[in-house]
C-alpha cells in the first residue's frame, strides 16, 4: 500500500551546522506536502509546506525540496540552533483531501552545543 516514511530515525548535528532531514513517499497522486516540528510534550507545529507544482520553497532558515521523480522530500535547516531540537515529520495528501493526510513516523534531531 501507499506509505510515507523517513530514511533516518535520528540525526545529531553541531550547533551552527546545516541539517537535512529526508522523507520518502510512495503515493504518486500526492499533491501537497508539509513538514511539522514536534517538541517534547507538545503538538506538531507547522514549519513549511510545498505543492507538487514546485520543487523548492524557502522559509526562514528552512528550505523544503521536492523531487517528484523519485518521490523524495527533504527539509533543510540552516545554522541549526539548540531550539531546533525536536522530532520532525513529513505529511502528504492527495489534492484537496485533508481527511487523508498521511504522516511519517518522524526523525529526532538533536543539536549539540
Amino acid at each position, binding site marked *: 500500500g501507499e506509505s*510515507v516514511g523517513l530514511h533516518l530515525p535520528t540525526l545529531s548535528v553541531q550547533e551552527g551546522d546545516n541539517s537535512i532531514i529526508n522523507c520518502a513517499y510512495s503515493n504518486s497522486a500526492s*499533491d*501537497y506536502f*508539509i513538514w*511539522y516540528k514536534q517538541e517534547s*510534550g*507538545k*503538538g*506538531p*507545529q*507547522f514549519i513549511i*509546506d510545498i*505543492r507538487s507544482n514546485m520543487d523548492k520553497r524557502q522559509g526562514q532558515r528552512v528550505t523544503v525540496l521536492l523531487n517528484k521523480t523519485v518521490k523524495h522530500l527533504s527539509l533543510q535547516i540552516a545554522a541549526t540552533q539548540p531550539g531546533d531540537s525536536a522530532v520532525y*515529520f513529513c*505529511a502528504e*495528501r492527495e*489534492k*484537496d*483531501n*485533508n*481527511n*487523508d*493526510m*498521511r*504522516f*511519517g*513516523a*518522524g526523525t529526532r534531531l538533536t543539536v549539540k552545543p
Partner: protein
Amino acid sequence: GAGVSQSPSNKVTEKGKDVELRCDPISGHTALYWYRQSLGQGLEFLIYFQGNSAPDKSGLPSDRFSAERTGGSVSTLTIQRTQQEDSAVYLCASTYRSGRAGDTQYFGPGTRLTVL
C-alpha cells in the same frame, strides 16, 4: 482562543474504564480532526468533523471509540472499556476550511493516555 487546546494533558486509567478527551479548536475553524500518535509511529487518523456534516469515522479502530462535536466547536473523544493498546497521545487539530490545500492543520498539545 489563541490555539487548539486539549484536556486533560495526561490521563492514567485502569483497563476497562471509560475515558473522555476534550478538544477546543481555534475559534472560527470549521474542520476538526482527531489523531492518535503511538510511540515511534506516525499520526493515525481517527475521525474528522466538518461543519454540520456527518463525521468521517473511517479511522476509528473499533466501536469502543466514538466522538462528538457539539455546536460545531468543542469535541469529545470517548474510549469505552479501555485496553492497554489504547495507550498513546491523542492529538486534535483544526483548520479554517476543509479539503483545501494550504489550509494548515493546527494541532493541540495532545492528551497522553496511559492504560494500566
